[in-house]
């Protein structure tokens, strides 16, 4: 429904941004002190001699000028070859694929939990503005926003896994029970924020004239809430949810570290610690791509939901 031109120009924009992202990442790793060859040998436990370093450098094209290196990398990248990880003996693509599943699962579960709690709470809070329940919900969400996520994670671990023994601390299944605590940790912070946002969106919609219109036409309050306000209020929230999903798919570093959850975030921290430049590049590029694709998806879905945008053909 969106015009093809606009889609094309959006995709072009994505390509340009990816280009910029890859360039900056490459530049960063290039400027970084310490050299990748030594790092690579390090990773396998060798202290290389200068000679070994020199040979490896020329083999890997690292003695070339920066731009040449970049273009070599870029052309490989365009052919779908992101190189091989220095520290993990797998191609970057394989590593990304491997960690993506776990991250996807965690992202969707936590987003699901977030929506499940934030939407009803936000609505109650908006509808009962300035009543006791509103204050209560707002205080809760305020607390949630102000708590450090990693602390919540640790405390959940302590209470639920250890004190109450409700959730296994580790599990080989990789199933739901392994994801539950990380997902809850993420969801607490996110739904605190979303509760506020749902509330704001509802209040905003409540103040619109069409609500008055519906009331003067005798439409019942419940119907106004669910059939009129909710779809309208979802519009701004969809964008935010898209953004959150984007960053969730980019890995949720801290939570993954605390729960030893093998997602992209953990992979990223390990890559940074090991100065695994190809892997860092791959991860960054990948996340940027996901982020922008989700943005695009949000915009497209937005235009499906919001006729004002659809009809004007703007993406």
């Amino acid at each position: 429904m969106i015009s093809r031109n606009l889609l094309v120009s959006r995709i072009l924009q994505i390509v340009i941004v990816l280009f910029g992202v890859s360039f900056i990442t490459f530049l960063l790793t290039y400027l970084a002190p310490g050299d990748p060859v030594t790092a690579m040998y390090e990773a396998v436990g060798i202290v290389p001699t200068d000679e070994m370093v020199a040979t490896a450098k020329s083999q890997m094209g690292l003695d070339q000028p920066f731009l040449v290196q970049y273009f070599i990398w870029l052309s490989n990248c365009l052919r779908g070859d992101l190189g091989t990880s220095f520290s993990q003996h797998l191609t970057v693509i394989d590593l990304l694929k491997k960690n993506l599943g776990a991250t996807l699962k965690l992202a969707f579960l936590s987003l699901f939990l977030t929506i499940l709690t934030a939407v009803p709470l936000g609505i109650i809070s908006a509808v009962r503005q300035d009543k006791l329940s509103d204050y209560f919900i707002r205080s809760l969400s305020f607390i949630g926003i102000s708590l450090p996520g990693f602390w919540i994670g640790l405390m959940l671990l302590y209470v639920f896994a250890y004190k109450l023994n409700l959730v296994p601390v580790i599990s080989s299944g990789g199933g739901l029970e392994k994801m539950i605590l990380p997902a809850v940790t993420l969801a607490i912070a996110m739904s605190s924020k979303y509760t506020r946002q749902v509330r704001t969106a509802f209040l905003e919609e409540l103040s619109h004239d069409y609500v008055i219109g519906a009331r003067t036409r005798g439409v019942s309050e419940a119907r106004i809430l669910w059939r009129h306000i909710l779809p309208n209020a979802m519009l701004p929230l969809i964008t935010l949810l898209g953004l959150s999903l984007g960053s969730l798919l980019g890995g949720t570093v801290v939570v993954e570290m605390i729960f030893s959850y093998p997602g992209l975030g953990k992979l990223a921290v390990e890559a940074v610690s090991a100065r695994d430049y190809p892997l860092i590049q791959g991860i960054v590029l990948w996340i940027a791509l996901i982020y922008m694709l989700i943005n695009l998806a949000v915009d497209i879905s937005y235009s499906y939901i919001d006729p004002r945008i659809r009809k004007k053909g703007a993406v």
Partner: protein
Amino acid sequence: MIEVSNLKIQYANRRPVVEDFNLSVKAGQIVSIVGESGSGKSTVLRALLGALPENGKVTAGDIRFEGESILGYSKKEWQQYRGKKTAMIFQDSGAMLNPIRKIGSQIVEYLRLHEKLSKDEAWEKGKEALSMVRLPDSDNTMKAYPFELSGGMRQRVGIAMAMALNPGLLLADEPTAALDVTTQAQIVRLMLELMEKQDAGIVMVTHNLGVAAYMSDYILVMQNGKIVESGKAMEIVQNPQSDYTRTLIETVPRLGGKRYV
């Protein structure tokens, strides 16, 4: 049809914004309320619709619709009253429609809320209402979103909806203020035509004395929450009694009237 007696309205606990307000409208009559900004005109209309803001309250007087006081209505009765017995036309009726739902679906929702109709019947009835207000392609209009129509067309949709269920009382808050003069003329003409057909009573708030004089049987002039003058439209225009009404009438620019240069 509607009788308002000694109405007094207050917001929170402040000075009353409307005091000693009396009004009586019979079927087929148009009563216009004019007056300076902030004099409480809209407040009165809202009170008639039982739609005062949360902090607003009728503190004295009574409003009787077909002999029955509406102030004691239950929630259910209010829903029946609004939309079925009375209807409201706004300055921008388009804004009163859900922006992301098609006009047809909102009309259907509205009609089925108050009358036992199948979806198709409601759709047909909606189309009928739209063609009544001379919207050229009523089928297309039903399928359009509010933002796709021009201001004049939206206003006509608003009027069509307001009239669709033959309400006894129509309330109109500056129905033409947002429109261009040529469109304003179209709408005025339309309202008058429909009035003749349906025999409803209209209470209209307007800033435009010309429109008020042309359309209405009676005019109320308000200032500071009080009625300063009321009477037959012609009499008020031709023979204003209060100073306020007189300056009001004098300062309206007229073609071929006073020239400044």
